[in-house]
């Protein structure tokens, strides 16, 4: 296994790098998009709530691979040429954002309604109340489920392998099928994923203890 690792070190490391990059980009944007749609879902305006609901229900209920394939194969045909890495990262962002939206919404809902009412009574606008009163409390509550989403996101990034996104899984497939050391290759790939996900897991636990 050491020999496999040494022989294919550059491939593993480049795959690792692309996986990390894709995860970070997707995490950043899905957190922003997800939070926005979560707020849409709890807004007083009915139109906003419907839009939020439609987005979440569509992208939460379509397999990630289908969304990714759509961006990889259909969009380049009619709109703009995007490569596998970009298509995979966009798919990952949209898919995860739907789950994050649901998570954050549940957080907002579990903040007592009186908090919002009291803020509004103080003369705050809806957005001010959200920003300064409700969201800080909501995020504290949803740290554990958000951590789950982040970990899922990193693991789901293996979808890039299906669209030639050069990530860890893609390199793993290529190495396994040229060296025929199937078992060892996928063990190494698994360990590389752990290198990314375990720190996230511990950091989220730490954050939970610190804030709760």
């Amino acid at each position, binding site marked *: 296994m050491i020999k496999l690792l040494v022989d294919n070190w550059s491939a593993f490391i480049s795959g690792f790098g692309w996986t990390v990059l894709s995860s970070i980009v997707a995490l950043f944007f899905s957190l922003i998009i997800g939070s926005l749609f979560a707020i849409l879902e709890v807004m007083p305006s009915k139109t906003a709530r419907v839009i939020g609901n439609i987005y979440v229900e569509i992208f939460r209920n379509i397999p990630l691979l289908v969304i990714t394939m759509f961006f*990889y*194969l*259909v969009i*380049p*045909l009619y709109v703009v*040429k995007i*490569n*596998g890495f970009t298509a995979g990262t966009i798919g990952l962002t949209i898919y995860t954002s739907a789950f994050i939206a649901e998570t954050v919404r549940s957080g907002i809902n579990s903040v007592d309604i009186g908090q919002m009412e009291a803020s509004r009574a103080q003369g705050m606008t809806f957005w001010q109340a959200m920003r300064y009163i409700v969201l800080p409390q909501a995020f504290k509550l949803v740290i554990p489920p958000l951590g789950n989403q982040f970990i899922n996101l990193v693991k789901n990034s293996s979808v890039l*392998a*299906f*669209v*030639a996104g050069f990530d860890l899984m*893609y390199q793993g*497939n*290529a190495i*396994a*099928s*040229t060296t*025929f050391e*199937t078992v060892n290759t996928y063990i190494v790939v698994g360990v590389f994923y752990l290198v990314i996900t375990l720190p996230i897991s511990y950091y989220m636990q730490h954050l939970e203890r610190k804030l709760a």
Partner: protein
Amino acid sequence: MKKFKYVTLLITSLLLVLTLAGCGSQPLSSQNVLENDKQTNTITWGVKADQKLIGLIDVKDGQEKGFEIDLAKAITKKVLGKNGKAKFVTVTSQSRIPLLKNGNIDAIIATMSILPDRKKVIDFSDSYFSAGQSILVKKGSSIKSVKDLNGKTVTSAVGSNSVENIQKIAPKARVLQLPDFAQALTALKSGQGEAMTTDNVILAGLAVENPGYKLVGGTFTTEPYGIGINKGQGDFKKAINKGLKEVIADGTYNKLIMKWFGNVPGFNYKEVLRK
């Protein structure tokens, strides 16, 4: 009570170790495949399910159809006798060797070239077909031969040796490895690459179904296809080779070539007939 807990733990871990050790010493693949097959009167073949003319699952009736399927059936009859059954398991370029190694299939007949690297891991029968690597492009493309691929993006399937060949012949070509050939073609169609490369018979099947695409530049490698058999299955290998010889000798082989490749434009079936 605490003592009891420790004993249970000890026994569980012991059992676990024994199970794992058992896995190591007697895998499915080390049994005698020929004898097992004679007992069940069935040979399990790993075949392609997405390659027209070679191995394709017909959507209408769910049956596998193609040259390799017919050849596998013919060889099965020679090995096991008239009532021998051929069972088919779908494999991809990537999954075929692992599936053979872990005993899910007895033999691979799935457009697999006989290569030194593969010979280290599995055994091959005599070659049953001589293919060669070629290029598929959109009609009107500026790519005329493999040399034009430098600086271009080429799609192919993961686990096929086409990728290594291209990297040797056109080192500046960028290769995208997709899960299977159907997806490599779809990627080519949606503009993710300028050309697709693999063995000519596979590309011929794709060109038949997709009139906007054609093969260019002829073949630039020779790829003798062989039937993949697990290491240490000497009896089974002998039986397969004997079966293959008989299929060629009685004319069945040439009939199958004519049946599947007789009418493919740009493919000279006479080159692959066997005497």
